[in-house]
């Protein structure tokens, strides 16, 4: 089963109204729609095989990006839901990235996110998902990614986000312990968060930890000055954001840093103008899609985060995205979920 069968035949591209001068400074809206629609169509077997292990997340990235662009109906809702259903493991309740692969916390969240977007949670066994996630929590509050025992704050976020989306956070995992574990991963030297206690501060993992605190209404535990400072240090002269000191800028960090700052009410601490320019420069003008940085090959992962970053910056062509859950805000509103956000300061 590949992604191409989810795509309905194209209705012929809408006309591109951009002027010829400075195309890189404008959002190539329809090019990106086309890119996501066609994602998987031209892929030969090798590429398909190589990325099969994250297929569920790939679908979530595509679905979310298209929805933010208001073009979700370009995908085949029915096929996607059928695919997601087939990936639920009957014994454990968790979701695999694709049939034949083992279930994992990461793809369980992606599956639930897709079904929330399509308002189709009733199609799966939600109780089994709760059992799966609860079963992976450890005595110290951390979460395994799957039964084989890797601990990572990403999994903590996945667990809490999944429970939140299923409206089961109150009666499932031990929230207090989960929060305690996440706080133990905060580095006092810079205020950032790593994957495990003592691990290096990393913008992606910081997003996961800040997101978890947002979902559990515990943002007051953050040292906002320290962390805000560290997040702002991610902005480089090019305007782009990196994930840790001395690393190159990458469009996906535009999401993780920006969303963290938005949750903390400090979005205005970075230069939006320069960041927007950087994100736009990562567009592939030929094929559509975004790459990690200017001039590289695009992929669906960076496309979502490029679009997401632009939405947070208030791009008029895009729907609002929720910074905590990285899903369209209207979906979060529909679910009645209210992740905590600090007031602007």
């Amino acid at each position, binding site marked *: 089963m590949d992604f191409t069968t989810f795509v309905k035949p194209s209705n012929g591209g809408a006309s591109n109204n951009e002027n010829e001068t400075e195309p890189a400074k404008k959002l190539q809206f329809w090019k990106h729609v086309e890119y996501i629609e066609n994602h998987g169509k031209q892929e030969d077997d090798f590429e398909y095989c190589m990325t099969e292990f994250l297929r569920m997340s790939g679908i979530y990235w595509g679905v979310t990006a298209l929805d933010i662009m208001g073009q979700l109906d370009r995908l085949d809702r029915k096929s996607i839901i059928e695919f997601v259903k087939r990936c639920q493991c009957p014994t454990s309740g968790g979701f695999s990235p694709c049939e034949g*692969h083992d279930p994992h916390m990461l793809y369980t969240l992606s599956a639930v996110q897709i079904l929330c977007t399509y308002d189709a949670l009733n199609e799966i066994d939600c109780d089994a998902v709760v059992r799966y996630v609860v079963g992976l929590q450890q005595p110290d509050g951390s979460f395994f990614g799957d039964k084989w025992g890797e601990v990572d704050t990403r999994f903590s976020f996945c667990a809490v986000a999944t429970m939140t989306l299923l409206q089961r956070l109150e009666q499932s995992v031990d929230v207090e312990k989960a929060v305690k574990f996440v706080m133990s991963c905060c580095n006092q*030297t810079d205020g950032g968060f790593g994957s495990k206690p003592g691990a*290096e501060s990393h913008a992606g993992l910081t997003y996961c930890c800040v997101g978890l605190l947002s979902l559990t209404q515990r943002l007051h535990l953050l040292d906002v000055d320290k962390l805000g400072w560290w997040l702002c240090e991610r902005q480089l002269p090019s305007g782009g954001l990196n994930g840790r000191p001395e690393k190159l800028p990458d469009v996906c960090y535009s999401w993780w840093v920006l969303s963290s700052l938005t949750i903390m009410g400090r979005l205005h601490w970075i230069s939006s103008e320069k960041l927007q320019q950087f994100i736009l420069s990562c567009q592939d003008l030929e094929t559509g899609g975004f790459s990690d940085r200017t001039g590289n090959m695009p992929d669906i992962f960076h496309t979502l985060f490029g679009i997401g970053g632009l939405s947070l910056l208030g791009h008029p062509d895009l729907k609002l995205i929720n910074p905590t859950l990285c899903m369209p805000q209207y979906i979060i509103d529909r679910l009645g979920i209210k992740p905590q956000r600090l007031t602007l300061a």
Partner: protein
Amino acid sequence: MEINVEFNNEKKVLCEKIIRDINAVFLKDADLSSFEIIPKETNCNKSPVVHVEHNLGLESWCARHVYDHAHRTLITHRRQTTQQQLRTLQQQQQSDALAKYLNVALLINPDVTTFWHIRRQLVQKNRLTINKELQFSALVLSMKPKSNEAFAYRRWLYSFQSADAIDWPHEISICERAADRCASNYHAWSHRQWVLQNAPCLLQSELMRTEKFMRKHISDYSSYHYRQALLLRAYELGYHAAEEQPSCLLQLLAEYELTAADADESAEEAVLQLLLPDFKRSSVSVQRLRSFLYCCNVAASDVRLCVEQRTLYGHRDCFELHRRAALKFIVEQSVRLLTGVARSGMTSSSSSLYLPPLPPQSDYEAHPFLIAVRRVESRLGEKHKRWCQIHLNFGQQAEAEEQEQEEDTS
């Protein structure tokens, strides 16, 4: 259509042969230590499997086909019922066959978590041995030094062995090699922290090794962070080296224009008077004090290192960030001792968990070291001053007072 079927069969036969050849190398060479894909897009009608000394290579022209074939075979196995799968794993011949596909698939695509899980099951069924698996994961790391799956697999394998039977220094060298090859190798340094947790006796050698690494890889912030964590850990454990005088610390204090009142004082005594004035030493253990001096001295030598490196190489973020972190260590631990936050006795809990904030800056007035740091650091630019305010609790009120003082004396 017939041609297609024939072509596909030919491809399959060729892939099977290549997979056999690769596994033949595995059997032949017990010390196989590295794998790489050799960029060679044309097929010269000879085997794409290259084996030179203990290095295995696979020509790139066939990688996609071989992977595709191995991948399909493994996923087909996984799509069977649990019972059917267990039967396969149980059976010697069938599980050996599975291992052959796993070897190739994971060398080409180490990111596929499920394939590592099949290996774990084979280990559980005693079809694969722990030592050979450690070797295999090292082989993967030679190809992809950032592979978290490979590091995670090693941690899982070690869970079957007792801590004192494990060659921890060897594990450190695996981390070091991976870090050496890939800048800011997050997973290598994270794994190294795991090793240190299990083998705290390596603390001293780690302090030496990390200094060397920092001097060589000047922009690799992961190594600087690891060193910061190392120092925190050393202090947590109450570590100190016997009979070592805190001379770097004394030198650093001199740079802040602080010297001992009595020239005959030992370095140790001088430092204690400057960093912990009027401190009731009986309130903490001798070990705690010694560790405090030792660790602050390491931090002071790091401050000096960063300044030297900056002179040598020009500005680098790492130098500035690490200098700040080292300075913060000295300030923070001094204040914690003075305000009684760190009591005597060693604690094994994480030092980053819910620590109370530093006391407000008004308490610093009687502390010459803190006043000196505030004065000197404030001259290093607005941005750095702001950092000091946030991290060292040097408030803006004090700044105004200082300016007054300076105007008075001028």
